[in-house]
Each structure stands twice: as structure tokens, then as C-alpha cells.
């Protein structure tokens, strides 16, 4: 595919005003292209601007300079693509049932919006229940958010991000607060849902194994101001099994990514400009990381 679905061209984001010397330069002439239907993971040191990229693509933030194109249109225009969004924090509304929470996008997004009153009891509710079943929450649609555990809420939040069949799915550390087993189960579920609906996915994560298991492509970012340092294509066959994420070839990939981020971090610590860094001896880096 030549035409990219998402195209960030020389995007700069400065928080705190253009002429403010105290302003934070979050992104500096960053470039990123993502093809339609691709699954891209964004990794990098904390505070490097991963969430900022996500917000740019979602149209929640305008760049200080540069262009953000999604679906061949400038972001922020009237005709926006259908987007689903999920954060680490599930943010369910406590006065609605889980099912009504999940159906919220259908209440807002066209063309579902105009049929919401007519279909909320029938077709839409059935769709919500089917999704709930897929994430392992069948029969819990009538519960209230406070009656569910954190992991269950996160599953529901994933349903809410997917119910309107978005063209673009934006995930910001969605599994960050979960235990290992739930997390791996949700990876598998997310992979299945992606294989079915084929939305373009941009996943921000701190878990490198998560990135290696889920993504087609992994982008490693430098320390702030963030730039894409390196891109890795992940060619493991689909559907991938959880065992794969423990296999040597995956471990190798994770190790390589880890090293790259450690480098980016040490640049930050030494205050160096994050252009192409001199490669330090890996073993020293690992010792430093472990200490």
C-alpha cells in the first residue's frame, strides 16, 4: 500500500506557547507513516511524547508546526475517521450499566447516532453483548462499573473502543494496570479482534513483550523531544500464540528493543542531543539498568 492511512510529517509539538523559554518541546520534526490496517506499537522512554503522538492522531491536540494527515485528510477537519480510544484508566460512567457504557460511542457517532433510540434495545444491545462475550464478560452487561474488578473494567473499556467498528484504534497503555495472566489473555483477545475487524491500530506500551507479540511494526522513540529512532518489522505468523512471546526469537527481539531504549534513556541522562547516538557497549548498559 503506497497511500498511508496516518501520515505525520515534520510534526513539532511545543507545550506552553511559542515564545516561552520554559516551554516543553515534546516532539521535534517527527515523522511517522502508518498503512491502513497495520498494527503499530510505539515504545520509548517515559515522557518522550508517545501519548502526545496518540493525541495528535486522535485530533485531541494540534501540532505547533507540521502536518497530521489521517485517512487522506488534515486532522481536526469536519469529516473525521471513526476512532476508538482506550487508556490505562477504564473511565466507565458509574450511573450507567456496563452495556450502556459500551454503547456510548453508538450514541455519539454517525451513522449509528440517528438510529440509537430505535436500536438501543435490539441490534445495538446484541452487538454489545456479543463483544462482552468475546472479552470473557458474558452476562455482565447489566452490572454497574463499581461491581466489576479493574481487569473486568479494562475488558469493557476495550469493548467500548471497538463497538462502532472504528477504522483507527488508539490504545495508550491499555493493559498497564493488569496482572500478567489477564494481560496475556487480553493480548490474545485483541489480536483476534484485530484479525476480524482489521482496524489500523496504534498501541503505546511500556511492555516490550506486548509490543513484540501484538504489533506488525515497532517504533522506538528517542528521549524528549521524541523522534522515531528505529523501526522494527515483526514477521511472526498470525495468529500468534502466547507461547511465542516466550520463545527465543521473541526474547531476542525484546532484548534488542530494550537495548535501544536504554540507549535513548542514557542520552537523556547525559543531556546529549538525541540524534544518532554512539553505540555504547551493551553489557555496561545492562549493568547500569539493573543497578
Amino acid at each position, binding site marked *: 500500500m503506497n497511500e498511508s492511512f496516518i501520515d505525520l510529517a515534520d510534526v513539532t509539538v511545543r507545550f506552553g506557547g511559542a515564545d516561552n523559554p520554559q516551554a516543553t518541546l515534546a516532539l521535534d520534526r517527527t515523522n511517522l507513516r502508518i498503512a491502513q490496517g497495520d498494527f503499530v506499537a510505539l515504545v520509548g522512554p517515559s515522557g518522550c511524547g508517545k501519548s502526545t503522538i496518540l493525541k495528535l492522531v486522535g485530533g485531541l491536540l494540534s501540532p505547533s508546526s507540521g502536518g497530521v494527515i489521517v485517512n487522506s485528510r488534515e486532522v481536526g477537519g469536519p469529516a473525521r475517521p471513526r476512532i476508538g*480510544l482506550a487508556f490505562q484508566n477504564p473511565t466507565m460512567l458509574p450511573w450507567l450499566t456496563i452495556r450502556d457504557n459500551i454503547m456510548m460511542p453508538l450514541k455519539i457517532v454517525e451513522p449509528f447516532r440517528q438510529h440509537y433510540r430505535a436500536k438501543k434495545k435490539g441490534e445495538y444491545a446484541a452487538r454489545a453483548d456479543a463483544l462482552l462475550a468475546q472479552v470473557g464478560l458474558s452476562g455482565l452487561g447489566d452490572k454497574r*462499573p*463499581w461491581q466489576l474488578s479493574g481487569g473486568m473494567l479494562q475488558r469493557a473499556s476495550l469493548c467500548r473502543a471497538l463497538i462502532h467498528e472504528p477504522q483507527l484504534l*488508539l490504545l495508550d497503555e491499555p493493559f498497564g494496570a493488569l496482572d500478567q495472566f489477564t494481560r496475556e489473555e487480553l493480548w490474545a483477545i485483541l489480536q483476534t479482534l484485530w484479525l476480524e475487524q482489521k482496524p489500523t491500530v496504534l498501541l503505546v506500551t511500556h511492555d516490550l513483550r506486548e509490543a513484540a507479540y501484538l504489533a506488525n511494526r515497532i517504533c522506538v522513540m528517542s528521549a524528549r523531544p521524541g523522534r522515531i529512532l528505529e523501526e522494527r518489522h515483526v514477521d511472526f505468523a498470525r495468529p500468534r500464540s502466547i507461547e511465542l512471546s516466550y520463545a527465543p526469537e521473541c526474547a531476542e527481539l525484546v532484548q534488542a528493543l530494550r537495548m535501544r531504549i536504554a540507549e535513548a534513556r542514557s542520552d537523556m541522562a547525559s543531556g546529549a542531543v538525541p540524534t544518532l547516538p554512539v553505540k555504547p557497549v551493551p553489557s555496561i548498559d545492562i549493568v547500569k539498568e539493573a543497578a
Partner: protein
Amino acid sequence: MKLALTTRQRQRMLSAFAIVAMFVIWELICVAFNISGLVLPRPSAVFAVLFEKMPLLWPHAVQTLYTTVTGFALGVLAGILIGLVIGSSRFAYDVAYPLLVGFSSIPKVAVVPIFVVWFGAGTVPAVLTSMVICMFPVVVNVATGLAHTEPELQDVLKVLGARKLDVLWNVGLPRALPYLFASLKIAITLAFVGTVLSETVAANKGIGNVMMIASGNFDVPLVFAGLFILAAMGVALYVVSSMIEQRVTGWATRGNEVVIT
């Protein structure tokens, strides 16, 4: 026989007992120190007057209740509207807040003469006073409730292309409801204060007016009878509004949602 009482029942019984005990102690003090009925009438005397003069007091009680409820309704309505405007944008909030603080710190006694000049003595200034006095807690609570929507949730909705009105209707308003109801309990009590204040200054009807005339005649038991009626009505309306609150915003008291009162 063993009495099995829930904590709630026990608490209610103790509350009732405390009220009765207060009257008993009051009565005993009056008898023991031989206090004149012109200074502090015994509760039994007050109840006797209350019973005896009920046909006379009743229309005044109805008048006061009517004035209070009307003022309360208008005040809450105005409070919700102003609160919505102020709370729905950060900018409006910052601009209007000093103005609001200025208005709410005016002693409300001072507005009664102004209303009397504008509308003459009677029901209208009383309604307006109670409206003005009970409006501010509603405004502040609604605005605060609206301002409390989590930024992440707003992002989830904005990404869907939600309009400002969508966010207000689906998230802002329900989120503000517990704050609104918490303020209603305060507002209803304040509405009474406003009504009686205005009635004592400029009216020819209402419990406030009765108490004013009675105190001019040194009919102290009648003054206290008026006080009892006000207390009873105040408690009744408080109970009604907190019952409605329980029904409408039960979700806010469950889970770890915290409501600020």
C-alpha cells in the same frame, strides 16, 4: 425476648429520643428555676398555644410554605441555569467566579428593603429573597460538578466527534447531579431563612409576620409556637429532598465515588 435492631433503626430511635429529651430538660429547667413564661415559655405551654391557635396559625403556615417552595423552585432553576453556563467552560468559570463570590457575600438582609422598594410589601419580596438566598449554593455546586469531568473521559468522547452538548448531556449533567442534590438540602433551609426574613420586615401574612406581631404584644408562647412550626416544616422539606437525592443519585454513594457536600 431479645430486641434485634439494625444500626439504622437504633440511630433513628436515638434521634427521636434526643428530641424528646431536649423538651423534657427544657421543661424541667423552666420549672426548677421558676422561669417566667415571658422569657422562656415551657414547651408544654407552647404546644398548648400551638394547638389552641392552630386555626389561626394554619393559613400563615401555608403562606410561608408556599412562599418558600416558590422561592426555592425559582432559585434552584436559576441556580442550575447559571451553574450550567459557568461550569461548562473554563473561561466562563474564571470570569464569573469573582462576581459570584461578591454577590454571595452580600448579607441577604440588605436586599429585602430593595425588593420592597421595587415591588412593595407582601409575597413578592419574600419569594425573591428566598430565591436569591438559596441560589448561590446551587450555582457553585452545579458548576463544580460540571468542572469535575475526568479529562481522559472527555478525550474518549472528543475522539468520537462528540459535540459540546453531547458531553454536557451524557457526562457533565449526570456527573453534576450528586453535587446538585447535595446543594438542594442546603438551599431548602436557606429558602426558609429568606422567607421569614422578608416576612418579618415587610409582609402582612406568614409565620414571620405572626412572630413579629406576637413579639410586639409580648405573646412569647406564640412566638415560640411560630418557631416550632418553622422547624417542623424545615425538617419535613429537608427529609423530602434527601429522599429524592437517595433515589436519583444512589450510584454516587456506592463504589468509591465520593460526593462533596
